[in-house]
């Protein structure tokens, strides 16, 4: 499960640190103590920034870094599509073999496909993504959907 891409993001996280945002959430994975504080900044429906601080395992930390890479600069619709696809991949229990279209959409995030075989770690990979979803709902004043 520890693809080089994942280890790279873990050792050299992208966009880490808390910056100005429209909403902030704090998510915890109670089973392992992984934590993330995440802020989103919107420019209309464009994601201007996703900033974060956290502690946790390589999977949760690398996943936040990949999220920052993938979502910043995207429009909300596109971001939701990415998030949905990533969620689907992670819940596949190793059954989805990412195809070209998925690789184009998820870029580095396809490296997490192997993690989906480890139920205990799926939550780690999803931690930042769930936090982003929550923060977005908050920032845009929508009802909480988590």
């Amino acid at each position, binding site marked *: 499960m*520890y693809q080089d891409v994942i280890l790279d993001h873990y050792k050299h996280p992208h966009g880490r640190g808390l910056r100005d945002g429209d909403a902030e959430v704090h998510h915890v994975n109670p089973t392992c103590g*992984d*934590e993330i504080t995440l802020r989103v900044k919107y420019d209309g429906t464009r994601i201007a920034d996703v900033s974060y601080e956290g502690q*946790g*395992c390589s999977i949760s930390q690398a996943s936040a870094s990949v999220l920052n890479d993938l979502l910043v600069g995207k429009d909300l619709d596109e971001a939701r599509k990415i998030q949905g696809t990533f969620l689907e991949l992670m819940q596949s229990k190793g059954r989805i073999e990412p195809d070209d279209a998925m690789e184009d959409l998820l870029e580095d995030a396809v490296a997490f496909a192997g993690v989906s075989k480890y139920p205990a770690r799926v939550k*780690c990979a999803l931690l930042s993504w769930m936090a982003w979803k929550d923060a977005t709902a908050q920032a845009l004043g929508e009802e909480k959907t988590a």
Partner: protein
Amino acid sequence: MTQLPGLLDTEAIRKDFPILDRVLHDGKKLVYLDNAATSQTPRQVLDVLSEYYEQHNANVHRGVHVLAEEATELYEGARDKVAAFINAPSRDEVIFTKNASESLNLVANMLGWADEPYRVDSDTEIVITEMEHHSNIVPWQLLAQRTGAKLKWFGLTDDGRLDLSRIDEIITPKTKIVSFVLVSNILGTLNPVEEIVRRAQEVGALVLIDASQAAPHMALDVQALQADFVAFTGHKMCGPTGIGVLWGRAGLLEDLPPFLGGGEMIETVSMHSSTYAPAPHKFEAGTPPIAQAVGLGAAVDYLNSIGMDKIAAHEHALTEYAIQRLQKVPDLRIIGPATAEDRGAAISFTLGDIHPHDVGQVLDEQGIAVRVGHHCARPVCLRYGIPATTRASFYLYSTPAEVDALVDGLEHVRNFFG
């Protein structure tokens, strides 16, 4: 192979545990170091379980037919075995529950509904410690919320021991119950019972000891402990899942109110009111975990056949060896006592900045099963400012070679994330 004084003949013992032959991940032999979470089950217990279902299965107590009599005798026979195992003054003081958590909740609930002098209410205090398992924290938080009682606790010293320096301020005449763990599942610490019991008795508080990590590993004598209640769980002591024990003093069990209501725990029922059976049945509502109790009885037989003192000596030698080897692993920090004195066979540690999840996963890839996380003792992690630990824990079948495998595995982890 490493030879240490006091070790058991693990080669013979391991033959009793079918699961220890399991091979993982294309050829890696299982190195099971997660015994504080649950122990493995010997053939001797599995045989008794099968025989129960294949020969004697029936509901207990209420039948006049052969199977019902046999099942009752087996079930009550298991109670005798457990009573002898913990040196209980009477078999009627042994209550079968589903796990240690139920045992602990049972006491908390009895005290909430009790009459004076046991009743926990808003004028009273409950004392626990910062190293308790969640199962000995949350029941008391619930009781405190529901009764208005005040929850107090002993803090921890930097080296993973209870800080008893303020014992007289913490246990006071307002204290109704002091509940603490005999051996911590996260730190490994063996706590000083005598000092706490003495103070509790001084102020007239009851004492409940969570022996979940003690009963499997050392000779337990509830009379010597001088506690009022002792709780433990079957699946950590070579028994099946689904069975726990609460021992309580006869007089208390007589005075205290029941918890769950239902079949088996009654004397006589009408629509208007009911009277209750004497203990232990008063506290065993419904069809009990019959096969599981019988299995626990077989586990007790098995442990006795090896000898609890020998098991303790084996684990002590192994723990000493493990601590010594682990301390040489760079960046490894033991969370809890750093010597084998007054401690059990669970060793928690952190490894530099590498998250325990990653440590555990990479060890798993080598076939080494350890537990990672807060081990249901999150306040301990908060206390030591860490998110989680990696924990290796031993049992009667653990070997020095497995300690070596762990140390080699950690070397690999460090290289991997280094």
